[in-house]
């Protein structure tokens, strides 16, 4: 694995600004702003899997889509293979989309119900003129369809005739047929049953090896990230609170949020072994995020400083970073709880 970054994200921010009616505008009301992603920086190296973990509403899916410019970022910069994606004109953006792809969470919503499998999977070849003839296109579609575990005689069927796992395979085939380098996997196994989930994970790992892919793997499931990612970034309310190699972050988490997340995961092997850290309360609204450290409303270790001053991400060595005021006080929820 080389260490050259394939994808570089610098200070990426995505805010959704609410619409105002004319009356509200006349009354000089300020629009509501959802701060979905705030000032996120990260790198994905060629050939690695960066796991992005967080609870619903933390902005992880928005981040994945903003990187691909499916949602236009509010500010910040995304560089892919030396090329700045955030400023590309529509034609150049189309070209780069051949190389940057996405696999969606919902295998039901992500396939057009009125198109056959052959049309869905063959679309990227058509859009990017990658097939020399109709026969060539069909042959390429058959090749990838068989690789991902469906049969050639299922090509002319419609999505609703397949099970969830099979549909997810079709979504994977569509993302891979144009031979991309980088894939955003947005919760690709969350909607699937356990045994099917394992099949899809294995398939994604095999394909990564065969095709030399790089993944940004978004998930709320720590076990999945722990199993397949090389590095992991933990998101809370639009910010990355901790990032580093999986072994370091998940076996010795430094941020209190990561610690509580780890201890909340039920474990089949060692039930009840973990010292439980119970977070009280719910995720604050991204419409009105807390001041200072965004985690202070739920953090058992919070002190006055956390309420007023936002912590800056610190290097802990070995690529491990975390943003917390109390990092150096040798405190751990897992021990004090």
């Amino acid at each position, binding site marked *: 694995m080389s260490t050259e970054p394939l994808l570089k994200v610098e200070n990426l921010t995505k805010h959704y600004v609410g619409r105002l009616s004319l009356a509200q505008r006349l009354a000089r009301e300020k629009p509501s702003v959802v701060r979905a992603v705030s000032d996120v920086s990260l790198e994905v190296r060629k050939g690695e899997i960066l796991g992005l973990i967080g609870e619903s509403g933390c902005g992880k899916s928005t981040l994945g*889509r903003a990187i*691909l410019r*499916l949602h236009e970022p509010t500010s910040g910069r995304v560089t892919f293979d030396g090329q700045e994606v955030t400023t590309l004109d529509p034609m150049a*953006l*189309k*070209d780069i*989309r*051949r190389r940057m*792809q*996405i696999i*969606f*969470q*919902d295998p039901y*919503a*992500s*396939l*057009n*119900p*009125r*198109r056959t499998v052959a049309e869905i999977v063959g*679309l*990227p070849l058509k*859009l*990017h003129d990658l097939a020399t003839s109709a026969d060539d296109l069909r042959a390429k579609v058959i090749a990838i369809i068989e690789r991902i*575990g*469906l*049969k050639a005689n*299922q090509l*002319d*069927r*419609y999505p*609703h*005739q*397949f*099970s969830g*796992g*099979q549909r997810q*395979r079709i*979504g994977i085939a*569509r993302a891979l047929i*144009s031979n991309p380098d980088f894939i955003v996997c947005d919760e690709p196994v969350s909607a699937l049953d356990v045994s099917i989930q394992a*099949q899809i994970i*294995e*398939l994604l790992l*095999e394909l990564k090896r065969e095709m030399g892919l790089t993944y940004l793997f978004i998930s709320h499931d720590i076990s999945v990230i722990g199993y397949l990612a090389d590095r992991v970034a933990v998101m809370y309310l639009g910010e990355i609170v901790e990032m580093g190699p999986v072994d370091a972050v998940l076996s010795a988490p430094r941020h209190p949020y990561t610690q509580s997340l780890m201890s909340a995961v039920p474990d089949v092997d060692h039930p009840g072994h973990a010292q439980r850290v119970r977070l009280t309360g719910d995720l604050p609204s991204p419409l009105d995020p807390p001041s200072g450290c965004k985690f202070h409303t739920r953090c058992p270790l919070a002190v006055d400083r956390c309420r007023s001053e936002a912590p800056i991400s610190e290097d802990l060595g070995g690529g491990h970073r975390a943003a917390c005021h109390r990092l150096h006080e040798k405190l751990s929820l897992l021990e004090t709880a």
Partner: protein
Amino acid sequence: MTNVAEISRPPETIFQQNLRNFMGNRLAVASTAVVFLFILLAIFAPLIAPHDPNTTDLFRRLQPPAWVEGGEWSYLLGCDQLGRDILSRIIYGARISIFIGAAVILVATTIGIIAGLSAGYLRGWVDVVISRLVDILLGFPYLIFAIGLMAMMGPGLINIILALAYKEWVIPCRVVRGETLATREQEYVEAARALGASRKHIMIKEILPNILSPVVVVSTIRMAHVIILEASLSFLGLGVQPPTASWGSMVSDGRAFILESWWVSTFPGLAILLLVLAINVAGQGLRDAFDPRFHE
């Protein structure tokens, strides 16, 4: 590599499923048959009509229907004030009603789909302009403006179609815009964008096929309305010009004799009623079968 078992369900498209639902609705199927009957009448009018619709015969002036005293079986529904066979005129009149109804709906639906898709998918100023235009047109009294337009442009088939389509496109446009707004947020549309598809491709290939069912359903039901509007224009003497037979003008012709010769107005009136009713019932059957929001 994992082995995926062959799926056992037979291939059936969503369209086929919907069609089967529709075929299960007997009333709707019967209504569709009635509509097709009218279409056949219109197409083969010269073969079916017992008499020439425009031949006047003053000896048969206001001759009653066959089963009333003074009627004869070769003039089944009687004759009008100029001695023309009413049945033949109704059969020829079906041509005008169905042709104008279909033409107006075709023009209006085409405009409505283009405008609605652009407004719903492109948003921004396109949406503002189209939506405002729709709002303004909705404020216009339909028939009064159609009358005004006809008075300005003068009679003629094309003019009738334009005078009725000026506002009719608003209906499919609103349906298409609403459906597009919902469909554009679907992940498969996002997937197409992620693959580098152009706006044109997304609008025509990804969104349109998924919103076509409700549009077809609404347009079918609206066709009944257009047929009534055309009849109204003809009734007011602004539609198809005499001697061409049109249901609306036939009803109008009979007004002066409604008490003594009721058949002159009644039978064309019943023809309008029957066709409009059949289209509405068939349209609602289509809606129940094809519009996913009406499924359980």
